[in-house]
């Protein structure tokens, strides 16, 4: 709570600079600050659902991915989990999974049409879900933070820097044209051109 209030203060500081400061470079600082505040807010809150970085390094996931990158494709994953699929059925798994509601099962079903299918995972619906249950079993001890906000924020950070660079280039040209960084002075000099 108090962390978010701090972020709110940071955001307001940046916004106040954009609106109130005369110097255009300081205004660009302000834009950076509010962008930063929004990014931190997203990541901070997205991190509250887990305690591990979203890079899977243990359990079946690693075996699958390592096999995948070694050239065995997703088929290796399917193979690795296939032995489980005989024992457990998806129907039995859904309640056992606990935090995963029926939506997860539906998603797994939908994934049959996704790239996984193209990778040779077709028909291994049960295998998919079995693997899901496997990692969910460890949920109490270890769960990753939400990777989606992090991926979104990568985009937002980069876009923010692009905007900053372009704004600075424009500010530079304006300085060359008017000899000042003062925004009001710029308006005055440019719009009252005879």
């Amino acid at each position, binding site marked *: 709570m108090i962390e978010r209030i701090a972020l709110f203060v940071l955001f307001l500081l940046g916004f106040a600079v954009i609106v109130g400061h005369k110097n255009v470079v300081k205004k660009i600082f302000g*834009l950076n600050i509010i962008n930063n505040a929004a990014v931190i*807010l997203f990541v901070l809150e997205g991190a509250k659902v887990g305690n591990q970085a979203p890079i899977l390094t243990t359990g079946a996931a690693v075996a699958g991915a390592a096999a995948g990158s070694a050239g065995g494709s997703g088929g290796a994953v399917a193979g690795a989990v296939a032995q489980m699929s005989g024992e457990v059925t998806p129907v039995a798994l859904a309640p056992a999974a606990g935090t995963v509601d029926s939506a997860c099962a539906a998603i797994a079903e939908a994934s049959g049409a*996704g790239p996984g299918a193209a990778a040779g995972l077709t028909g291994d619906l049960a295998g998919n879900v079995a693997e899901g249950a496997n990692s969910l079993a460890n949920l109490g001890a270890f769960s990753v933070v939400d990777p989606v906000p992090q991926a*979104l924020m990568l985009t937002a950070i980069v876009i923010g820097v*692009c*905007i900053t660079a*372009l704004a600075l280039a*424009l*500010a530079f040209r304006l300085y060359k044209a008017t000899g000042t960084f003062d*925004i009001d002075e710029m308006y005055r000099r440019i719009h009252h051109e005879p």
Partner: protein
Amino acid sequence: MSPDRFIFGVVMLPLLGAAIAFIAKAFGRDRWTKGLEYLGAFVGLGLPWVVMVATLPLVLEGGALEGVVGLWNPAVGIFYRFDGLAWMVNLLGFSVAGAAWIYSLGSGPKGPAFTAVFLIQTSALAATSMTADIFNLFVCLEVMGIASYVLIASSDKPGSFLAAFSYLMVSGTAMVFFLLGIYGFYRLTGYLSYQGIATGLASLPNFGGVTGILSLALITAAVAIRVAIMPLYGWLPDSHALAPHPVSAVLSGVLIKTPLFALSRVLLLLPLGAQAGELMGYAGAITALVAVVIALAQKDSKRLLAYHTVSQIGYVVAAWGAAIAVGVHTSLGALLMAGAFLHALFHALFKGLLFLSVGTATDTAGERNVYQLRGAGRILGRAGERFPVTTLTFFVAALAITAMPPMNGFASKTFLTYGLKGTWQYSLLFAASLGTMASFIKLSRIFWPPKKSTLTEPVETNPDKPMDPVHPARKIAQGLLALACIGTGLGAPALFALTTELFSSGPRAAGTTLGALARAPQLYSVDTLQTTLWILIGGIMVFLGAGTPWGSGLLRVVRERPRSFRGLFVSFSLGVAGLSAWLLFI
């Protein structure tokens, strides 16, 4: 190949064209550069038409292509939806962008870098029209924005740098607010697709409470900045007036409308979206009137046109908002939405034509002041324009924007106001029509013969000055747009039927019948022609009134009202606050 495989051609072909143009720039050898650049432009602006034609049958049947980009899992992937609305917006984008690019061959900035950025902007327009994911909308808006900042600055005047900078700062700040809106929605629902957010919000008690409402307000306001309606339009006049002419044409014609129609997807799905649309509609009606008064006060011809853009977008938003408020699945809503869209399309055509033809005239004469320039037609004739293409196309466009039959503006304004009859917005829009008429009488004076007594006319004082001939590409682009204005004017009833048909496939409307649409407004009736006559007479009265000392004094006050950078942000804050308060307390 099934349509859902190649539908992304409308986004990717312009990008491919841009890539080719960048290669042309990087590997520049004089002979190949031009060829590659033109190839890129053809790939980016020509080939998408093939995709458009190929998808037309499907769209006409009321079908929509929807799914997840790249067939990734829908839990995380990006949704898209290509339906009638997206098809129409793409039609708008590619027609104006094509004509403007041809015109750019004859004037202003050019070269592969310009073509590449221009194509990227076109591609962003197409992507905006078909995305159904809120974060993807954010990215599309940023691409569109950054391309337009660069294009505005490409005219290389200090004023255009200032305009681009102001636009960048205000819309960059608004996009951070947009990001916070995404945060609100994601936190409440866990989804980023429009449909996911809508179902997620619907399942929450009280639609997500204050946060849901405020997130909606933030997103709406950030998009409204791009659309430039009443409190948020401050960035527009400078940037449109100072950009190169073809860029002005695309900015006014397409760039400010695409976000509007993209927003309608969000608002039609989300709870309280109808109320947000309603308020925007009111703001649009007010904008239409206020902006036209400011336009009437302008001296600079392109700035006058820029304020007219604000005013005309006000018309579009007024009808659009009313349509959102009643829902496009109702017959009134579909009628209003079709009217709004047709006016957006026709405005893109005639405003593009106005920017191009006024640009040609003022460039050739070397004078942009409406009060100074006279006899532009004769000057153009001296510059080698045997057949007065520019004069004719200007008057075609002026008749269209002032809603004179049989031009397209007449048709769209008739359709648009038909659905609003009897409301207070209608009277505002009618008053705005008078102002439009008056200001175009004022603008058309640049083509009037010079008065004997005035010696201020610059070219008359210097008849030996060598004139640059008008580039043929300019004439071709103007001719194409003028033909489009007349053609769409004559074919307006058919287009109207097509548009209502296409909008019937919009979100939420599936399965509902539109039988009541048979009563589409009669285009040429005693009633509409009478209205036109009143507008004509009233417009002349206003024009004469503006010429009186009292009138011109008033206009000077309007023209010289203080404008500042800070004002942009204050009005943005007040706009967001007003929208939030409206949504919270209604």
